[in-house]
């Protein structure tokens, strides 16, 4: 049910046209997305889990999609809102292609468009509950940016959403450099994904890695990483965190 906010003597919620349903909390969510620039382009990575609250409800939700010729999008947060965003972007790209005039929307344009959509929806107090990563290459220019449900947006050489911000970014800050080869970049991404798998309860061991270069988009089939649970820190995880569990 929509929550009601009404002044005693003011116009009713119905009169203001504010009686519609809003997303007050997300239902099915995806966890972190990681993105980084490497020598030839951009790599995006995410697992394919879809959580229903804290239940790991879906195991093969694709959260990385190509947008037009030059861009890749990765999403965490509400899956149905992401599907809605994909619908907007599909329309946008089709309309852009219909001109057939040699101009095309690049990652920068798509990122800015999404920023406007996200910020506009939050101003209607009806946000699209996502953090989106946008990567792409156009005219030899690499682009990597983030936009979230309240319209905060930025560019960086490496980015991560959700738990990834806390667990993957420090690793990326320490180990990322501009001329990583594809193989090195995948290795670094896998290191981050593994840490997330160990520490983020919503993460699952089924990953999608995608790259975009001047040649185009490649989304690799899903695969799993080898895990090792014998670390001494895993023996008694509550140790050193007395009372919190």
């Amino acid at each position, binding site marked *: 049910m929509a929550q009601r906010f009404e002044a005693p003597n003011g116009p009713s919620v119905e009169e203001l046209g504010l009686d519609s349903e809003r997303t007050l909390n997300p239902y099915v969510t995806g966890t972190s997305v990681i993105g980084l620039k490497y020598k030839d382009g951009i790599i995006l990575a995410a697992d394919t889990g879809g959580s229903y609250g804290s239940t790991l409800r879906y195991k093969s939700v694709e959260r990385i999609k190509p947008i037009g010729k030059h861009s890749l999008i990765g999403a965490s947060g509400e899956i149905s809102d992401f599907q809605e965003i994909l619908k907007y972007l599909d329309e946008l790209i089709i309309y852009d292609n219909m*001109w057939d*005039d040699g*101009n095309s*929307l*690049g990652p*920068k*344009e798509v990122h800015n468009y999404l920023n406007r959509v996200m910020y506009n929806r939050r101003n209607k107090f009806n946000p699209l509950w996502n953090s989106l990563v946008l990567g792409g290459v156009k005219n030899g220019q690499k682009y990597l940016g983030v936009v979230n449900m309240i319209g905060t947006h930025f560019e960086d050489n490496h980015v991560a959403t959700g738990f990834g911000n806390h667990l993957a970014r420090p690793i990326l800050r320490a180990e990322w450099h501009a001329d990583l080869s594809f193989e090195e970049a995948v290795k670094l991404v896998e290191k981050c994904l593994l840490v997330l798998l160990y520490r983020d309860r919503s993460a699952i061991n089924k990953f999608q890695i995608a790259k975009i270069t001047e040649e185009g988009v490649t989304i690799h089939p899903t695969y799993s990483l080898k895990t090792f649970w014998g670390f001494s820190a895993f023996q008694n995880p509550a140790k050193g965190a007395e009372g919190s569990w």
Partner: protein
Amino acid sequence: MFRNQYDTDVTTWSPAGRLFQVEYAMEAVKQGSAAIGLRSATHAVLATVNKASSELSSAQRKVFKVDDHIGVAIAGLTADGRVLSRYLRNECINHSFVYESPLPVGRLVVRLADKAQVCTQRSWKRPYGVGLLVAGLDESGAHLYYNCPSGNYFEYQAFAIGSRSQAAKTFLERKFEAYPNASRDELVKDALFAIKETLQGEKLTSSICTVAVVGADEPFHVLDQKTIQELIDSVETREEAAAEPGAMQEDQGQDVAPMDI
């Protein structure tokens, strides 16, 4: 008694398949003072004749900057031209707001043409009495479009509109094949020559013309009067120097157009 029965309404066809009101609007473009445009692969140049309608008044502006990458030159009803320029500016700034990138020229011109076309299909409206030369730059290079009151638009390498524009067109038709690889300065020079053609012998000075440039590393801007006057002077001294040896042989001069020497 023999009044035209089919020209009182924009939306009424004549039996010959013509829309007179639309044709009258296109006539207004021909009566406005001339505007010309030309482009290379990387640059586009617009130029207009700006003459005051009376000794006591100033001339009306005929070149408008739409955005950093697009500008227009107009011929016809200046008031309509300003309305359309405002529309174009709006479209550009809205596009920048949403995409943080410049609006492609061709897409802007389609919107402009659609707006002009609507006026030819509504009984309570009138067509815009203005022709616009839209010059700009986008991903696919420099472009020049002509937009007509009828809602038709065409892309050109070089074009001229307004009064006595035929003389400028004849000049440009002879030269346009070299334009794709021409330098910016060559374009500006030929823009001045084309303007001069429309003046029919009257002296070209910087006070009666406007020249504007947009290019790969140069946002759209109107050249200042001093620069234009210097260009005119340098072109004229060169012309006089070229004319000297021709004057020696009297009998050759007469039947050859000055341009062919």
